[in-house]
């Protein structure tokens, strides 16, 4: 069993709390990605899993066993470092074999497995080279091979793709997913790139300033963000966050935004009615705003001025100025819009997210 869990884990360095009371777990075989901006504590969290940092508070468990006091070499985890951490004085073959030789495995076994892994990763021809002679992608694969040969309880990967160019990165994302499907080892992967997170993860843990913002599968994070930080971190182009007012003077609660008045019912309505203050923030994803003709089918409509049109081929990103704010919208390829044109836009209030203006927490 190789589940992973962090219970109430906190890590403080002098004067700074890097990780603040997080509860996180990964089921056996799951691909968990910890994502967040630089300095959010994700690498520290990973290093606590590996054993290179000791939690200031809380318990780290691997396979159910508390490993706070277990040194890295006894945790049976494998790690792929951002800079690959290959031993520079050994050939690729010896790098791959390093762990097995430490564990005194028979030479035949070592040769067999090293060759097999090297073939599988496409580095079979590089076995006699030294790391200095390899490209970034090749070194990456040697590091992966070494981790795989460990047959670990868990894989830990620390931004393994960030030193690769874009094309290689896309290819490696695919390979990593394939390897994960094939070997089924519990994986904890750290990155700052939300695209990697969205495409590869079974579950995503989003962190900011040492706090866990939300832990959920990618689609949930996208469509049901728990606060405005999550909403704006996930998704590219970013979600549009617009200031809005709550008007309670009529029978139904109304949100006033983008010169529209949007009636709000149900739970959200009662929440808004009960809260202090009048300000909220609404979030609209770029694809949730559509151009329309004047006069519609009951959906809120507003006008805006086109500032910038970026055709991407399969879609077009348009920056539209509405009042004091600029919204980013995703339109179908041939939108026929030009900078300077006025355009009518509409959206579906059902898709709209409402956040508290102060805390960013999602209200509805």
């Amino acid at each position, binding site marked *: 069993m190789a589940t992973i869990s962090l219970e109430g884990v906190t890590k403080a360095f002098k004067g700074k709390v890097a990780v603040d009371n997080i509860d996180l777990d990964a089921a056996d075989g799951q691909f968990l990605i910890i994502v967040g901006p630089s300095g959010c504590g994700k690498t520290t969290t990973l290093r606590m899993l*590996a*054993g*290179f940092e000791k939690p200031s508070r809380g318990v780290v468990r691997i396979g159910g066993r508390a490993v706070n006091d277990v*040194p*890295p*070499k*006894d*945790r*049976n*985890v*494998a*790690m792929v*470092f951002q*800079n690959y*951490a*290959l*031993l*520079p*004085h*050994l050939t690729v073959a010896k790098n791959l074999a*390093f*762990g097995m030789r*430490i*564990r005194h495995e028979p030479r035949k076994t070592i040769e067999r497995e090293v060759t097999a892994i090297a073939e599988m990763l496409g580095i079979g021809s590089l076995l006699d080279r030294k790391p*200095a002679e390899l490209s970034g992608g090749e070194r990456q694969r040697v590091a992966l091979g*070494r981790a795989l040969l*460990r047959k670990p309880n868990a894989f830990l990967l620390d931004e393994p793709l960030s030193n690769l160019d874009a094309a290689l990165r896309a290819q490696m994302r695919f390979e990593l997913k394939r390897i994960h499907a094939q070997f089924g080892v519990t994986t904890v992967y750290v990155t700052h790139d939300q695209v990697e997170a969205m495409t590869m993860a079974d579950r995503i843990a989003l962190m900011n300033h040492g706090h866990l913002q939300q832990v959920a599968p990618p689609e949930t994070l996208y469509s049901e963000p728990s606060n405005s930080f999550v909403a704006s971190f996930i998704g590219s182009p970013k979600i549009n966050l617009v200031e809005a007012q709550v008007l309670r003077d009529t029978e139904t609660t109304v949100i006033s935004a983008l010169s529209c008045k949007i009636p709000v019912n149900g739970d959200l309505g009662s929440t808004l009615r009960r809260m202090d203050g009048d300000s909220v923030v609404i979030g609209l994803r770029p694809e949730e705003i559509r151009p329309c003709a004047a006069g519609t089918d009951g959906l809120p409509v507003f006008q805006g001025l086109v500032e910038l049109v970026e055709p991407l081929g399969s879609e077009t990103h348009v920056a539209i100025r509405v009042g004091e704010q600029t919204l980013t919208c995703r339109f179908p390829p041939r939108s026929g819009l030009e900078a300077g044109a006025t355009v009518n836009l509409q959206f579906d209030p059902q898709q709209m997210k409402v956040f508290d203006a102060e805390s960013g927490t999602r209200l509805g």
Partner: protein
Amino acid sequence: MTAVAERPAAEAAAQVADKQRLKAGTIGWLLPAWALVTGLFLVPIGYAIYLGFTNLELLGPTAQHYNFTGLANLDRMVHDPVFWSSVKITLIFVVLSGIIAQTVLGLALALLGQRAHVTVRASVGSVVVLAWVLPEICVAFIWYAFSQSGGVLSTATGHPNDDLLSTVPLLIVCVANTWRGTAFSMLVLSAGLRNVPQEADEAAQLEGASYWKRLIRVTLPIMRPTLMINMLLITLGTISDFTLIFAMTQGGPGNQTAILPVYMYIEAFQFNALGYGTTIALGLMVIGAVLSIFYIRQLRPELRRASN
């Protein structure tokens, strides 16, 4: 600086212009260094190669009128038991107190320093370096005193009435030299340790390697060039050391601690044989060169990679 001929034509043209611009005046600045090095290094070396084959003496008739004696000195040296004993003693001195003791102790201090408390590391480091900064004559005197009857070393090893410099002279001078010289290895190897990437060590930890395994299989191999350079420098420095041994034992008792520089001095300035003394010094140079070539060959893969 890479050879000019390898650069593309445009750069070469720019360099010619540079040459002419810089040439004005500054080449003369090389003159003092050139004079000093030529006059007090190169010329003496050449002169030494000549003198080594003469019968020059310090005093007496052959001080003024000396002759080239061909291979006579060389013949004498080859058949001189004291010379060969001196070679052996020199090698023991260098290998034991220099290469082994100083490197091991320096490495131990560097490794301990990595993990020890900051204050301990700083203060012990300072003490060790202080031993190195102390003038060599003082080092000689202190350890001379320690080895006398009643001295600290004699008492501590249970022979309070012995003059250790009579009973185990080579050992004592080795200890003294180790005490003095360890700081250099400690500093060089500390710097080398800092250059070992932390991630390589962490990766080895995750593979299950214990501290000693990591030291032997990861840290030391990565540090190999630093270790080789360190040993090369220790060898060259120790092989030509004069003051410590001469002040402690004058090469004695008998010739038991007469390393080559000391033997050279004795032959040249106590037995008047300047020519023969030079021959001995030439022998010293040859031994130093042989050892240097050995180290450089060990370093060759790193040197080749560095020049790529």
